[in-house]
């Protein structure tokens, strides 16, 4: 098992009309590590997440998850293989309560086509929802409608939705975007906790956080992988400094 | 299949007669078991109060220009009857429901007339589709229903013992007009008509007759009801056509005449039609588009071709002029060939009710038996003329007229007396075989 890479992206290209969003991206990520992807806006980070989760089809290339080819699989199939993600623009099921949100996420992998059973009797998912609620710290708000939550709580619920599907790999797209320092700190702790049991790939702008928590960092720019390595090696890479931290030596 | 249906009907009817027997013998008990004060009130009301007759009319929708006259006729009839002491001494109350010229709504409104407005008899719709949708309802609710639509099925394959028609159907119209038209207008016919029962019925009946007389009938042209533009249909009329037989109504009819005129079809062929096509339309209004067209009518438009006291009084009642049948003070033209039925049918009912000694709804079978074979004499009650409501197929035997539009006036070219009609069209059904 250990010699099979968790996620293997081979020569993936994605074009939007004339725009090359991803160019020959190759990535091989091992299990048991917290990976981070960084890069400037428009580098193709979110596009990479999108093709990996099947939200958009690749133009060419292959994507393997735990050794199985899942290039251009249907989104829900990929999810059921154990790949969950959060979205940069937080989106939860606004008119459902927190508990219902988590319940459906848990139930979605156990089948929803049982039209005559009361949903409250699907004990396994009900319990799962409670566990996740506790884990993300929203138990006190469990019966609130999601649309009544604060920005930070929605971000937490978003992560809860992904967790409730019991993923093998969790893709987090800017999970602390828009949070204050206190919230950020809590969330980062949570992410670290989760990473003990679940593999995580995180896209984050906050370099400090990334360097603090990541075991391995991939830097992307202009649709290509610029560098990959330990935080230390990345910090020392001058290409990375140029591409990401701004053209240092203008004027 | 046919036989099974018949036995079903018989069984339903037996079931009913058992019930009426019960009612007669155990009146008190039966009423008590109805357990409803409302029901009891109804039963008594019918025995002494006014007689409710429903009118199922096209007040709105595509047939509203006809419905206006049917309504006016019905009101005039009830007025005349009530001024003359009512029916069997009981006042007549007229209840009207608008069918909106829509079969689906019409069937619903008939239920409303009978069940809500408590009509014991219904004088019905001139719309063939509504009529056909209504007959099963009227039969189920055991209420005599007079229709005025021309589709032959109402007194034919889809007729029942409860449906009557004093006017002509397509069968009668074909028998009345086709022989003369084949002889005088030409032998090669093309028929164009709207795609619903009325049109198809005309086509079927005429085709049979014309072919039996050695004529040729080309492929028919059925125009969908919502059609806006007739050019695609008119351009399909074969060149060799000698007689163009059309059946339309209302706006489509005007469209047909103006369009065919502008396409100069009238120069190539003779145009022949039935009264329905020109009902409620004034030839003066359509810029001569109807000039030279032959029409088969039930009732001549000008007074002069049936110049008697009753016709004159009827015209006065309707407040129309004696040449164009135009309402005085408005520009409405009376739908004269059909609307008279909504007047005369009340008198037919009056005669039958009085003959049978009808008291309440359970006596209705007597009225039906009285209506079967009812003879009506030319009178104020029957200004269209003497007629017979034939016992077998419940259809009216009346005089017909062939007119030609000359100078925007209707000129009668030929009168077909009802005796001739009776001889030419033997009954094809006998509803008396259905028990009541």
């Amino acid at each position, binding site marked *: 098992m250990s010699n099979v890479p968790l996620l293997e992206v081979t020569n993936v290209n994605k074009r939007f009309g004339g725009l090359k969003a991803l160019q020959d991206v190759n990535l091989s990520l091992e299990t048991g590590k917290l990976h981070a992807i960084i890069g400037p806006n428009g580098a193709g980070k979110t596009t990479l997440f999108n093709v990996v989760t099947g*939200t958009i089809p690749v133009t060419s290339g292959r994507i393997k998850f735990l050794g199985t080819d899942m290039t251009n699989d*249907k989104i829900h199939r990929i*999810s*059921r293989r154990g790949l969950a993600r959060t979205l940069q623009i937080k989106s939860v099921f606004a008119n459902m309560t927190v508990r219902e949100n988590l319940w459906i996420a848990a139930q979605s992998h156990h089948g929803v086509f049982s039209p005559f059973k009361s949903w409250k009797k699907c004990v396994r998912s009900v319990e799962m929802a409670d566990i996740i609620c506790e884990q993300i710290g929203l138990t006190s708000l469990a019966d609130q409608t999601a649309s009544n939550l604060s920005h930070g709580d929605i971000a937490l619920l978003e992560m809860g939705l992904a967790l409730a599907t019991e993923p093998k790999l969790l893709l987090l797209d800017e999970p602390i975007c828009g949070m204050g320092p206190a919230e950020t700190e809590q969330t980062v702790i949570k992410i670290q906790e989760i990473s003990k049991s679940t593999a995580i790939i995180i896209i984050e702008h906050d370099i400090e956080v990334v360097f603090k928590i990541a075991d391995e960092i991939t830097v992307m720019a202009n649709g290509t992988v610029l560098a990959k390595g330990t935080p230390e090696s990345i910090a020392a890479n001058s290409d990375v400094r140029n591409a990401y931290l701004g053209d240092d030596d203008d004027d | 299949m046919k036989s099974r249906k018949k036995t079903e*009907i018989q069984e339903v009817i037996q079931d009913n007669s058992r019930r009426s027997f019960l009612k007669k013998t155990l009146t008190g008990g039966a009423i008590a078991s109805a357990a409803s004060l409302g029901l009891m009130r109804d039963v008594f009301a019918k025995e002494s109060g006014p007689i409710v007759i429903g009118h199922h009319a096209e007040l709105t929708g595509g047939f509203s220009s006809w419905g206006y006259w049917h309504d006016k006729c019905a009101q005039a009839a009830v007025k005349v009857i009530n001024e003359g002491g009512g029916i069997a001494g009981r006042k007549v109350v007229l209840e009207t429901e608008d069918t909106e010229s829509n079969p689906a709504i019409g069937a619903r409104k008939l239920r409303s007339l009978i069940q809500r407005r408590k009509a014991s008899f219904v004088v019905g719709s001139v719309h063939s589709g509504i009529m056909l*949708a209504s007959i099963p309802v009227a039969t189920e609710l055991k209420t005599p229903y007079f229709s005025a639509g021309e589709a032959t099925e109402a007194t034919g394959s889809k007729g029942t013992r409860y449906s009557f028609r004093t006017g002509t159907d397509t069968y009668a119209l074909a028998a009345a007009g086709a022989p003369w038209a084949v002889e005088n207008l030409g032998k090669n016919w093309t028929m164009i008509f709207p795609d619903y029962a009325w049109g198809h019925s005309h086509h079927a009946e005429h085709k049979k007759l014309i072919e039996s007389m050695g004529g040729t009938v080309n492929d028919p042209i059925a125009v969908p009801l919502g059609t806006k533009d007739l050019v695609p249909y008119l351009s399909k009329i074969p060149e060799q056509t000698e007689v163009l037989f059309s059946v339309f109504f209302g706006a489509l009819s005007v469209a047909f005449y103006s369009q065919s005129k502008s396409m100069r079809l009238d120069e190539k062929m003779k145009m022949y039609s039935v009264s329905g096509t020109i009902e409620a339309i004034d030839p003066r209004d359509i810029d001569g588009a109807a000039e030279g067209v032959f029409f088969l009518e039930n009732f001549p438009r000008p007074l002069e071709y049936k110049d008697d006291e009753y016709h004159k009084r009827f015209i006065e009642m309707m407040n129309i002029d004696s040449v164009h049948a135009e309402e005085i003070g408005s520009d409405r033209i009376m739908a004269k060939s059909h609307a008279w039925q909504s007047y005369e049918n009340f008198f037919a009912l009056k005669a039958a009710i009085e003959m049978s000694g009808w008291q309440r709804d359970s006596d209705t079978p007597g009225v039906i038996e009285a209506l079967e074979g009812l003879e009506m004499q030319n009178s104020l009650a029957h200004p269209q003329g003497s007629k017979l409501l034939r016992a077998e197929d419940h259809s009216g035997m009346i005089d017909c007229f062939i007119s030609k539009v000359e100078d925007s006036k209707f000129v009668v070219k030929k009168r077909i007396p009802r005796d001739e009609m009776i001889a030419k069209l033997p009954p094809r059904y006998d509803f008396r075989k259905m028990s009541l």
Partner: protein
Amino acid sequence: MRVTDTYKFGSWLLVLFTLTAPWVLPLLVDSFWVDIYSEILIWSLLAASVNLLLGYVGLLSFGQALFFGFGMYGVAIGVVKFDLGFWSAFIFGISLATGMAAIAGSLAVRLTWHYFAIITVVFSLIFYFTALSWKPITGGDDGLPFTIPPIISFGDYKLTMTNANFQYFFIVTIVGACYWLMYRVINSPLGRAFVTVRENDARAALIGLNVYLIRLTAFIFAGFIAGVAGALFALFGRYASASYMFYHVSGEAVVWAIIGGVGTLFGPIVGTGLMIVLREELSSVWDHYLLLVGVAVILTVIFAPRGIGGAFKALAEKIARQQFSRKESGP
């Protein structure tokens, strides 16, 4: 009174009224209103089918009349052309509608938003025109009247819908069964999945829900409910007609559903009831009552897009919350 109590009380009142209507209504108004109430119940199913799609999976169908029409024609054609008995014709009509929903749905639910609304109209128009021109089978513009076969017959004894009370309770039973079915489905995992898809289809797919299949299931279920309504209405009116397949009928159903309140189980009954009673009462008083209907529709959309049911629900919840918070802050 708590929210659930209000609901329970309202539901019981509705059930009680429904069961006693044939005796209560003639005392209050007249016996024809029993028929009107039957009609309301039948039409409410069509509105409920719109509600299932709009209120629970978030798809605005403007073509539910198609399945209503199929249910209707199934019964009429079954009786007239195939000489079927009551039950076989009824089941034939419903199966036809459900089958059609499966075919139409497999194509239609690929689309969402405006496109979905348009394609449902287009599908219903295709069959509307087909029904109009396919005269030998459908009766074209005249429709297809038929004589109702008996429901049960033991030799001489026949039970038919010509018996007014029997007809009423037959309709109540079938409509009631449909609502029970909808209740069960809505409260099942499948029903939760419907709502999830309505709330956010992209997210629903990401947590592993097969959005297409869920939408298709909802569509077929809604088609089935509309088909039952159509089959019942054919039996009730002893008549089938293409005019019931026109998009105006679908539009009316959408209006009833919206005025009643989408996303609530009984909203459609309230909306349908209100609009039909309005029609019955106003149409005889004022010829142009439809003007009021039009205005009511627009006002509802502008001011109460969640309809009467939604407004009631919001109000009940608000009251409940206030009481709750008062309790919280109490000594």
